[in-house]
């Protein structure tokens, strides 16, 4: 080990060196912004300087050819500085308005999609899925590709009442995060345990501790130390699977998708909100997951037609009420929509507020 290189623990790099010079010059001195067209922002500083942002969606899992293509476009049509948004869209920054249109054209010609600003359905925030995750119930990039093919007009335009953030997640850990619409894996059967492997692979006490409903206990199976699951208690959340891969939770048939709505991170108009279950039992159907996309499109259509300006999906539903939401999106309301977790009582209607 003597010849091993010691790491330089430099941590998070200083962005100053990569930032557009006009952004450096006007740091903290911006006055206002405008939205001249979908996919484009114009920010004006107190100094009178302005900067134009052109935003584009990509495939997110970039091959070096695509990355270099984006760099080529950035060099030829922009000023060589880019910014990535939290939802993995790329933003090119230019100071010369005359560069905006050629930049948009170059991006579109190269197959990237300009849009995703303001009241659009912006890029879906997603996870790794079958491409790289160790516990996924479904793919991520594939679901998103198939869905964005269908939602591309809503990405390119800004016709929604307010912005729409969609997320997908390949297990109930929900790495994709809260969304106005979230498409998440929901398992429907308890894990299938390979008892031959548990003793060697799993730290049993920590697996027992991981279960949110205390359904797992140590057991001796075929003379070997293993674990057993009380299947009446099990909520099929899959929390035991990451620390103990022999407790296989993924199932080609019984791993389903569920759709949640109304997650909103912003404090604008109301406190941040968590997403709520609206649909479940949706088949996990590669390669294009048409059933999930169909429901997402129904929700978006009802929202677009029914919501008022500035209402996010949670606010729209709060105004029209859940009965009408289920009616408008033609989804069944079931006993599974009634929360059973801690705090559930707070979600019950303890009033006479009923819409007719």
């Amino acid at each position: 080990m003597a010849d091993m290189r010691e790491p330089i623990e430099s941590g998070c790099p200083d962005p100053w060196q990569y930032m557009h010079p006009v952004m450096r010059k006007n740091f903290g001195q911006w006055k206002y912004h405008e939205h001249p067209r979908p996919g484009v922002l114009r920010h004006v500083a107190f100094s009178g300087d302005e900067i134009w942002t052109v935003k584009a969606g990509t495939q997110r899992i970039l091959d070096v050819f695509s990355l270099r293509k984006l760099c080529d476009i950035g060099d030829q049509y922009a000023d060589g500085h880019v910014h990535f948004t939290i939802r993995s869209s790329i933003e090119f920054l230019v100071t010369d308005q005359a560069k905006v249109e050629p930049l948009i054209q170059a991006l579109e010609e190269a197959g990237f999609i300009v849009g995703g600003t303001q009241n659009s359905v912006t890029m879906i925030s997603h996870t790794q899925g079958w491409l790289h995750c160790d516990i996924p119930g479904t793919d991520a990039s594939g679901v998103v590709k198939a869905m964005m093919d269908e939602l591309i007009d809503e990405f390119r335009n800004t016709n929604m009442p307010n912005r729409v953030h969609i997320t997908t997640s390949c297990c109930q850990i929900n790495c994709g995060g809260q969304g106005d619409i979230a498409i998440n894996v929901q398992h429907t059967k308890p894990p299938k345990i390979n008892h031959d492997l548990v003793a060697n692979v799993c730290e049993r006490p920590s697996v027992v501790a991981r279960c949110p409903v205390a359904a797992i206990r140590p057991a001796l199976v075929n003379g070997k130390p293993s674990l057993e699951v009380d299947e009446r208690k099990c909520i099929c959340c899959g929390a035991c699977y990451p620390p103990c891969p022999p407790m296989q939770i993924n199932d080609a048939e019984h791993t389903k998708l569920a759709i949640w709505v109304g997650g909103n991170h912003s404090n604008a108009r109301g406190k941040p909100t968590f997403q709520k279950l609206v649909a479940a039992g949706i088949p996990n159907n590669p390669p294009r997951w048409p059933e999930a996309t169909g429901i997402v499109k129904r929700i978006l259509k009802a929202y677009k037609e029914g919501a008022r300006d500035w209402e996010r999906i949670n606010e729209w539903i709060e105004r029209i009420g859940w009965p009408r939401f289920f009616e408008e999106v033609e989804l069944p309301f079931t006993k599974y929509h009634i929360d059973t977790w801690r705090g559930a009582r707070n979600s019950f209607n303890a009033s006479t507020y009923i819409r007719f």
Partner: protein
Amino acid sequence: MAIQKHHTPMLDQLEEGPWPSFISGIKRLRDQHPDARINEVTNDLLGQLEHSYETRKGYWKGGTVSVYGYGGGIIPRFSEVGKAFPKSKEFHTIRVQPPAGNHYSTAMLRQLADSWEKHGSGLVTFHGQTGNIMFIGADTPSTQRFFDEINDYGWDLGGAGPCVRTAMSCIGSARCEMSCTNELKAHRLLVNNFTDDVHRPALPYKFKFKVSGCANDCQNAIERSDFAVIGTWRDDMKVDQAEVKAYVAQKGRQYIIDNVVTRCPTHALSLNDDNTLAVNNRDCVRCMHCLNVMPKALHPGDDKGVTILIGGKRTLKIGDLMGTVVVPFKKLETEEDYESMVELAETIIDFWAENGLEHERCGEMIERIGLANFLEGIGIEPDPNMLSHPRQSSYIRMDGWDEAAEEWFERQAVAGE
């Protein structure tokens, strides 16, 4: 030598349609990249992915891989079907911390691409959900070589496992008129104070910092971070009445009333008869809505600072938690201001490291021990801003009430001096 390409009829269907296709990108690496190693790796990756699509199962397993001197930062992936797809059987992700605010020059992106194709698969994501650059796909020896190369020109690994994770901050002051703080400075001072805790996982579970410059919270900090720093202000918001009138002239009185005045969550706004805007700043909660609607007319005040919320996280294990206000307002101007914020983070992480259970996030610990005990543990006095409302339940023993009330009045007197 021509490679035997895997048949991928299901993945091929993801090359159809107008949105950019990641499958086409992986195929470009397989078919067009000059390095035969990359052709082979991506071919087997496609083969395994097609197998997942056919069987609806994932086939990656974790393990233990890191670089010399660190205990984390690499997401190890070993294939369970490596015999069928041997060239991609080790396919680790290297998590690299981005510059605060995710700014890049194309020159730097090219340099990273050059290093990555030398050692890895040629696949990269800007960024993963924690905020890292994800360099996806390298075998075990290559992770060290790639890290050594990029570490030499300024890049360091992010966190993975029970440790301080890579932080995130919005574009903020660099391009946004709503920004109320120096996001990149807060971001770097916080996370770079804990590089040891980033690289050597030894905490109960993950701990995330996120910084958003205003209450729009573009970084999803309240829900997705253990330590959320949100820009705000405490003096009056700035109103350019001429611009307000211009909005009214353009959109009409009814639009402004329906979309600005009545949407204010605390009814702090009124549209005057002369089309100017009246603001009751004592009632305003700085939610950002009216500023979002009229970005030319309305701006944050001058007395800026941050609100700090602790304990946000997603589902596992006890259910979703938003962060809770622990510091209602803090100035971030002087070096001492920033230092005291970093000290608060140290105090909180130390307390949690001491008292958190294994695999228990900071917010879950607060839920278990109670907010009042947590505040006592970190030496912060209770404040009504920390709650939506005071206690509802009478089941509490209150024989220390008189002393606590006395302390409140003493603190108020000191604050009023």
